């Protein structure tokens, strides 16, 4: 990269050639700094606009009845109960599948795996999976869980949806687990080994408890991302109009993002009084409250963790 204007002709550093031009350079500096501040706040301002707009739109519909009602063809009578319950089911099931798998895989790769070609292949594969679009996971779920494993999942069921989401978050959980484990100093492991503990004993008694808050934070953030996902669930076949609550793993299901999408995509022509739009906004508020709750738990854990180690 060229060092450009400020330092002039090096071959003849005579006074006449050395044009410092400080005022104009400082002027450019100021412009650059202001531009960078503006850029930083653009995102935040848009976030604020988004939240205010949504909350204002949701006010006409937000009520206790909205949470406890089933969907309806009449916008004013519709509610999100099956979607909310479906989302909570997905939340629990996805966590149950993805957390043990991801943490186990992370522990293996960080603490056990030899540094060979195979391990590196797994690592590259995981970072690659983290960048695969979520809708591709939907196609995977559709083919593998809905069709090939039909007898187990019962087709387009809540189990198929949860397994798809679990695969989606798995790479992120593995990566955060490894990062948390890596932050634990090696001296702790050596102390354990010196006392005669096996590797698993050291991990279970010393390393894992220290890494757990970090792992939990990452996992909660990953799963809250998954809970907001719409595309993979549509492809796996979440239903859009459901008037019952899920009773078992093979139940049909819907979820909050699906319900919101359904309300948003009502044709404007057939929906002149905008009531479905208000429903969508109210649904978004409910979804955001769920996600915000999860995020606060994650932030709480992170702060507690950081204080404990300082």
């Amino acid at each position: 990269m060229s060092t450009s204007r400020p330092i002039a002709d090096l071959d003849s550093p005579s006074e006449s050639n050395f044009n410092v031009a400080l005022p104009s350079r400082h002027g450019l500096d100021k412009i650059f700094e202001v531009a960078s501040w503006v850029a930083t706040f653009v995102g935040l301002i848009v976030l604020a606009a988004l939240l205010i707009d949504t909350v204002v739109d949701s006010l006409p519909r937000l009520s206790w009845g909205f949470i406890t009602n089933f969907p309806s063809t009449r916008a004013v009578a519709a509610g999100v109960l099956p979607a909310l319950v479906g989302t909570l089911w997905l939340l629990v099931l996805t966590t149950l599948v993805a957390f043990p798998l991801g943490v186990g895989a992370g522990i293996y790769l960080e603490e056990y795996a030899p540094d060979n070609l195979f391990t590196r292949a797994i690592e590259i594969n995981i970072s690659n999976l983290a960048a695969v679009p979520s809708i591709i996971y939907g196609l995977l779920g559709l083919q593998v869980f809905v069709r090939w494993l039909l007898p187990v999942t019962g087709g387009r069921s809540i189990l198929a949806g949860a397994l798809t989401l679990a695969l989606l978050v798995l790479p992120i959980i593995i990566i955060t687990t490894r990062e948390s484990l890596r932050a634990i100093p090696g001296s702790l492991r050596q102390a354990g080994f010196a006392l005669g503990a096996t590797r698993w004993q050291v991990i279970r008694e010393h390393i894992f408890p220290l890494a757990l808050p970090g792992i939990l934070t990452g996992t909660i953030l990953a799963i809250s991302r998954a809970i907001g996902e719409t595309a993979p669930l549509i492809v796996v076949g979440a239903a859009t109009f459901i008037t019952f609550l899920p009773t078992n793993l093979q139940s049909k299901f819907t979820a909050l993002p699906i319900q919101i999408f359904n309300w948003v995509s009502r044709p404007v022509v057939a929906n002149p009084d905008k009531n479905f739009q208000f429903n969508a906004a109210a649904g978004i508020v409910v979804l955001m409250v769920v996600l915000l709750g999860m995020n606060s738990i994650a932030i709480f854990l992170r702060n507690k963790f950081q204080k404990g180690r300082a």
Partner: protein
Amino acid sequence: MSTNLGISDRDGTNLWQPKRGLNEWVEKGVKGLFALFALVSIATTVGIVLSLTYETIAFFSKVPIWRFLGETQWSPTFNNPQFGIIVLICGTFLTSLIATVVALPIGLLAAICLSEYAPEKMRRVIKPALEILAGVPTVVYGYFALLFVTPILKTFLPVEIFNALSAGLVMGIAILPLVASLSEDAIYAVPNSLRQGAYALGATKRETIVSVVLPSALSGIAASFILAISRAIGETMIVTIAAGQTPRLTLNPFANLQTMTAYIVQVSKGDTPAGSLVYQTIFAVGMTLFVMTLALNIFSFWFVRRFRQKYE
């Protein structure tokens, strides 16, 4: 916390009982189990490739590949179906282009600001705020694009109800935090000695940033850019909701069009019987999408390895 197995009772009769045999079994069992868990990630990749390939081959046995690559219309459900993937790629290209034009410069500037200009306290507040922005579900951004941004655009531009511009702009905002956060990590990691060296040579702060700090952080910044582009290509809900469902070969940002992802959603919403040609098209489209993002990933991987600067 229990002091398990290896170590003894208090009364001293039984001070040393390592139970090595049992421990070795536990050790092997745990290691094997966790290795199996790690293999799930390989199985996921294999599953993705297998399920996409399986249906894509079935698709190409009915529709020759030259029609897929050569035709200029996308109408699989019509009586006289056409399968020109270029139409959907064009839609994806246009919305992603708009999104990256918004997200890359703003994201990079924000990253520079957070790392170089903002006081440390402020950085610690703004960075999590940007990450919240990254965590907002995309369906919410879709709502925002269709019902907030499009009406605003309509007041001064000849846009249709569904249009690429609104979807692209909002998608840019959606991937902006990703660019800002990852680039900031890379810029923040550049050692201070490099900055001090530049100052000592008489460079101003901007000159230091532009000609010393940014080139040093190049690999990390490029990785964040490529990841953002691949996010934009794979983004689904914003374009489905706000860009429309009309496959159309156009680069007009005011027009209603359809992206690859939006097509997959459109077909998935209906009750398409498994094994039918239309069902297979979504896997062929998915395969195209997968190959594109994979190529970007590989490129990013190569680029980072090639240009990474190591500092002690």
